[in-house]
């Protein structure tokens, strides 16, 4: 007898990988994947990089060609928005009124752009960068933009700034906190990136709020700062982070706390419902079990594999090491582990030369390593942090210390 039908709400990195992994492992039940976008599942990381710059087209963005879904018997429903879950009846209702039965439901609903309650936010020329459609619009506008203001100096804002500067567009970035990518990077890393972007011509306004977005005839024409300064703008990118899409779960009575709350096997309190990827808050082994929500391709894909294993009756707790990357102009940033709350850093390599790693410690424990143009360090970092073995601050700082040998030896 075939296994029970699986419905996956969301078709980005987590949803896609779950469907693919289930079939790869021989899951013989029906699989339906719901997307509220009109496209086949596509990769998001290139949106803010090669797709935005025009280097690649939609064909290279797709996860798989259309035939894949037919071959793998994955029922892929585009433009399908799930609006409610009937847990007792095990059905999902779509916006169209249609009801789908599930044996297991996986919420891979992702996150959406955080929209600040600013006067002028509705003006034409205010853009976002998360979906394919938004990026297409942004790409068209970027081509003709004269003055660009980016609100928020996170990964997305800075990746966009790098692409815009490569097209020689004036870019001004307004950031509420005092530094770039402050939520995820050490002070050392943060300062390095701010300097690199400045050298490329970006103008930063740190520790600055936005008072309003000003317009003329419905089109944006400036951004007014809290300090009173006025930045000219015909294109404004809002990149101040995301909000998890947890309403579907919350409305169904499932626990929600900055995301859909799941246990260490990524199951909600309802054993027939799991949540994976950007929308899921899970006890993170790399943060002493603290409930954590991560926005990362690695997390999405590894969550999916974990749930696929459980549905194949090989349940195990989620333990994968988090890792992240960003590409900003010629600079490659790779982060292994979670550096949240670190209280000590040691730089390895040469910060001035732009090839270095920052080892981050929390209470004396190595918790994460940021590598800038040092991919070898990053790969050793993944091994080290996965094994849980330590490199002392003194060892990290010592250029003659053999990180590779340490990572290899300690993996055994």
């Amino acid at each position, binding site marked *: 007898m075939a296994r029970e039908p699986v419905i996956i709400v969301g078709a980005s990195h987590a949803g896609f990988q779950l469907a693919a992994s289930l079939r790869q492992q021989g899951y013989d039940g029906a699989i339906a994947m719901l997307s509220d976008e009109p496209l086949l599942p596509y990769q998001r990381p290139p949106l803010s990089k090669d797709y935005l710059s025009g280097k690649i087209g939609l064909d290279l963005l797709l996860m798989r060609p259309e035939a894949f879904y037919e071959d793998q018997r994955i029922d892929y429903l585009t433009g399908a928005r799930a609006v409610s879950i009937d847990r007792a009846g095990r059905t999902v209702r779509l916006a169209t009124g249609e009801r789908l039965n599930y044996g297991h439901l996986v919420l891979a609903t992702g996150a959406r752009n955080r929209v600040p309650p600013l006067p002028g936010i509705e003006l034409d020329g205010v853009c976002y960068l998360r979906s394919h459609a938004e990026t297409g619009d942004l790409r068209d506008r970027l081509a003709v933009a004269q003055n660009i203001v980016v609100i928020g100096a996170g990964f997305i804002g800075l990746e966009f700034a790098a692409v815009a500067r490569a097209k020689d567009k004036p870019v001004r970035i307004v950031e509420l906190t005092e530094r770039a990518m402050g939520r995820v990077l050490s002070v050392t890393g943060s300062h390095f990136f701010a300097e690199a972007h400045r050298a490329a011509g970006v103008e930063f306004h740190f520790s600055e709020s936005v008072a309003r977005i000003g317009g003329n005839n419905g089109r944006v024409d400036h951004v007014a700062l809290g300090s009173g300064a006025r930045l000219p703008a015909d294109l404004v990118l809002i990149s101040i982070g995301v909000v998890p899409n947890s309403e579907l779960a919350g409305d169904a009575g499932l626990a929600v706390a900055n995301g859909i709350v799941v246990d260490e096997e990524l199951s909600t309190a309802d054993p027939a419902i799991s949540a994976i990827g950007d929308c899921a808050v899970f006890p993170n082994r790399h943060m002493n079990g603290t409930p954590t929500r991560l926005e990362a391709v690695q997390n999405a894909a590894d969550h999916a594999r974990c749930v696929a294993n459980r549905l194949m009756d090989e349940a195990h707790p989620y333990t994968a090491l988090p890792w992240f*990357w960003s590409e900003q102009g010629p600079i490659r940033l790779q982060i292994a582990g979670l550096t949240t709350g670190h209280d000590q850093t040691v730089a390895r390599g040469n910060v001035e030369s732009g090839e270095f790693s920052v080892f981050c410690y929390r209470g004396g424990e190595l918790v994460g390593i940021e590598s800038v143009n040092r*991919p070898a360090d990053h790969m050793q970092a993944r091994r080290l942090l996965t094994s849980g073995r330590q490199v002392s601050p003194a060892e990290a700082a010592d250029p003659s210390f053999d990180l590779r040998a340490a990572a290899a030896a300690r993996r055994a």
Partner: protein
Amino acid sequence: MARVTYISHDGKETTLDIADGTTVMQAAVFNGIDGITAECGGSCMCATCHVYVQEDQMAKAGRMGADEDAMLEGTASPRQPNSRLSCQLTASPAMDGLIVRLPETQT
């Protein structure tokens, strides 16, 4: 164009004609060849598009960059002297006839 043959871990052979400029990873993904994950989408960030180039064809595969060399340190299946990341193997006439074997696992 380059004709490239993929041999899966269980021995299944697939041959593809790959247009110049397309990578061995992209061609595999778009032609439904199992065994290449390519989690980062071809940015040389994840080491999940690992392949073993037939030993006597290393020159055909072209030169390896420093980033790729570094990322190969983290493959899920053991790195061998003939290991490459297929997202860095861009098809050209010089690559015609290349044979790559896929590892047991990418993750």
